């Protein structure tokens, strides 16, 4: 279901793929992870708006999480390797900013996986500058919402640091962007 939804939501140039190819390629992409958060796939992260065909090439469109994310090159290489491994020789990754990635693109399954990794999932992304909204994070260890935002910058560009006042542990949150 998700595959069809992703495929129809965003349109790109090029021919559409046969149904069987589509399923194979999306399954291959679902094995590619962010090296800094290895539990969640790039599909669950919402980083792949569409896959299409351009002549002989299979084109994976990738919308980056943060423009300065140092993992992008590795992810791009891993996409090519995974799709080649599924039997598609000529693979290209197009980095696109349309649609712009926001944390709202992370799927529900992806959010559960972030939490299991110890990262509080992001709340709804807000366009405005609102510290209160960003401060809302449930502790991934004890589910308490009695938490305090410690730092809007963390060990990677996509993480903020919070403190749980109930279980008295620091934890990281995937930032709403």
């Amino acid at each position: 279901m998700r595959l069809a939804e992703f495929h129809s939501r965003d349109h790109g140039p090029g021919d559409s793929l046969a149904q069987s190819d589509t399923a194979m390629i999306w399954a291959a992409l679902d094995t590619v992870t962010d090296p800094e958060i290895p539990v969640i796939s790039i599909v669950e992260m919402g980083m792949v708006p569409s896959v299409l065909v351009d002549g002989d090439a299979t084109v994976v469109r990738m919308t980056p999480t943060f423009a300065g994310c140092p993992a992008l090159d590795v992810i791009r290489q891993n996409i090519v390797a995974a799709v080649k491994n599924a039997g598609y020789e000529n693979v290209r990754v197009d980095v696109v900013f349309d649609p712009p990635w926001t944390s709202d693109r992370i799927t529900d399954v992806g959010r559960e996986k972030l939490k299991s990794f110890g990262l509080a999932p992001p709340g709804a992304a807000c366009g405005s500058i609102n510290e209160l909204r960003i401060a809302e994070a449930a502790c991934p260890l004890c589910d308490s919402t009695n938490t305090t935002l410690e730092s809007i910058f963390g060990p990677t560009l996509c993480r903020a640091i919070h403190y749980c006042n109930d279980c008295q542990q620091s934890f990281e949150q995937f930032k709403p962007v």
Partner: protein
Amino acid sequence: MPTEAVQPSVTPAVRSAVIDLLYRLADDSVILGHRNSEWTGLGPILEEDIAFSSMAQDKLGHAQALYTLLHELGEPAPDANAFLRTTEQYRCCELVALARADWAFSLVRQFFFSEADRIRFELLSQSAFEPLAQLARKLHGELKYHVMHGRMWMKRFGQGTAEGRERIQTAINAVYPHALGMFESTAQDEAIAAHRIGPSESEMQDRWENEGGTVLSDAGLTVPKNVKPVYGGRAGKHGPELAALLESMQRVYRIDPNTQW
């Protein structure tokens, strides 16, 4: 970074105007990113070490994306563009090139720049040059964290100890003439407005003075009045700080520009 050929066919006049604007945006980003990276390992507290390093990484990412748009318009590849141009070829404002000085100075510079950066990319998300509009919509979301950081510290220092307030006010007074230089016009500004590529510098400056000024006044800090802006950067006329920065930033790349990284 984007490899998809997305730019529509553009007229020579639009192309020149877009290129002029993109160089200003990209050069501001890479130079401020480099300056802020100089705080990595040296921040006064761990959180600020991380904050400046993160904002530096963001700005280098923004620079890479902007240089990529330039490359798609026929300009040199991103690395060659950043690492092989001379001081005179750079179009950044003087504000971003100034030596990092003390943390108060760097913090105030970052505050002034972030306020302008957010306004700029918010307005550019309506650009008639669609590849820039798309990128602006993306970067705008990241910039809100930079703005939050600056505003939080202005408030803290404005309402904190006498020494902190005095040091921040001293930095504000020193940085302000250079901050006004962010809005220096170029010969392409009329074309940029006429083709709806981006907002005018005076429109951005009005909003910046209003919104940034409110943050400072609310914090009990004073906005300098009747200040003469420091111009020149947008025309390639830079002080010695940029030359020193480029000498350091470009040194390794220039040893062997063709090497594979």
